[in-house]
């Protein structure tokens, strides 16, 4: 798969961080870290804005994160009209903060800021790939 296969609808074909999709295919959600100054990045980026080095490495986002906030979207933009309702969320992990979707398996009434979540790759319809937050 190429980077164009990332997400429900992709708007970007090329990025230096396109290996993100290859890692998803292998079952890993990855962030990056600057080898020179140690700054962690999510979304992953191959250029460090802190020390301006491009010597960065990938690392896996493992373990439990904490839900910071969420919203259940009932009205999707063009391209997402048949996808709603879906839940967007921001989750804090040990080293990075991640934006994404909550698994449709979690009922709305059970969602609470502060709840523990993990992040895993997910296959999407139409030969696409992404990631989602799931219950620990």
């Amino acid at each position, binding site marked *: 798969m190429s980077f164009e296969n*990332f*997400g*429900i*609808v*992709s*708007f*970007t074909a090329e*990025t230096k961080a396109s290996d993100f999709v290859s890692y998803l295919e292998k079952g890993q959600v990855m962030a990056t870290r600057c080898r020179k100054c140690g700054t962690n990045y*999510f*979304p992953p980026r191959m250029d460090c804005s802190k020390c301006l080095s491009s010597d960065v490495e990938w690392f896996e986002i493992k373990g439990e994160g904490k839900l*910071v*906030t*969420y*919203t*259940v*979207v*009932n*009205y*999707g*933009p*063009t*391209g*997402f*009209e048949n*996808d*709603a309702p*879906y839940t*967007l*969320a*921001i989750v804090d992990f040990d080293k*990075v*903060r*991640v*934006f*994404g*979707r909550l698994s449709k398996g979690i009922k*709305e009434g059970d969602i609470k*800021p*502060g709840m523990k979540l993990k992040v895993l790759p997910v296959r999407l319809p139409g030969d696409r790939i*992404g990631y989602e937050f799931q219950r620990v």
Partner: protein
Amino acid sequence: MQDVAIVGVGQSVFSRKCGVSIRELCFEAYTEAMEGLDITNNGIDASIICSAPEYDKQRSPAGSISEYLKLTPKPSFYVETVCSSSSTGLRVGWSLIKAGLHKVVAVIGFQKMSDLTSRDAAERMSRGGDIIWESPFGISMPAGYAMYARAHMAKYGTTEEQLAKVRVKNSHYGAANPKATYRKELSLEEILGSEVIASPLKKFDCCANADGASCIIIASRDIAKRITNIPIWIIGLGAATDTMTMSGRESLTGLRCAQEAAKQAYKMAGVGPKDIDVAEVHDCFTIAELMAYEDLGFAKPGEGVGLIEDKETYVGGKIPVNVDGGLLSKGHPIGATGGSQIRTIVKQLRGEAGETQVKGAEIGLVHNIGGVGQYGNVTILRR
């Protein structure tokens, strides 16, 4: 360096479907701004055209608008920070005059959104977020602000009813604004009972897409005193940014770009939140107005709800806010909104606000935000 004054303000009627072209919308705003000024088109040294791109077939709209208003052969160019484009235009215009390059500048904002379906307009706004990492999940403007609302509720106990009270107020004032898209008072029950767009935000927590234009004419001190009786002085300007990504935000209970812009504007003006007599804030969603109370220092973090509960942001309260109905009533033609907010404050400071006049208003503030808190402009004006 000469002081800079606002000498003319205008806006078109904001509506769901204007039925005219962009240049004609701008003409309506421009003629109102020029009304009563002792100056002709030839006296405008430059025009700054402000809007969000990709709503129009016309590429480089500055060219067609400057021709239609006969502002050629003077310089004209385009400025963009999505929903805060026209207050960014004011900042650029101010600096052109301060630098001595020009003496009179027209800042024209516009947006015609009715050429797109509502979903296509949502898609444009979605791509106003980070297209590589966040748009592929289906983010939208309501969704971004909804995440702020949920975080604010979790931290401070803010309720959906308190959010709805912001719309009750703004619909009350919108009913009196002949230029507003929505001129109907809404009850708390109607707002709370409207359909959920992105939880916890419901239809009536959200402003609507609209067509409209605005125009602000600014001038150096010597010219301003000659061409108008009541110049309104620009005494404070603040501008800041935050990350494009939602995951990059350090706080999700307030807009850092607004806090930073407010700090700059207060410092430059030499005033504080208590000195502001009337304010226009960017209420694209009810939560946005509530956060603005806190980000601008009208209330401490988490205590903004007290201002709406006690009706302190109504006319007659401690700090009247959005007494023209706000974006929630006027509608939000993206590039025109900042200019419309400035127009309202200028009319208040001139004492020309009619039935919603805040008595004796001398210092006013405009808070105009681009995207989901990506760009923040705070402008302070004095009579």
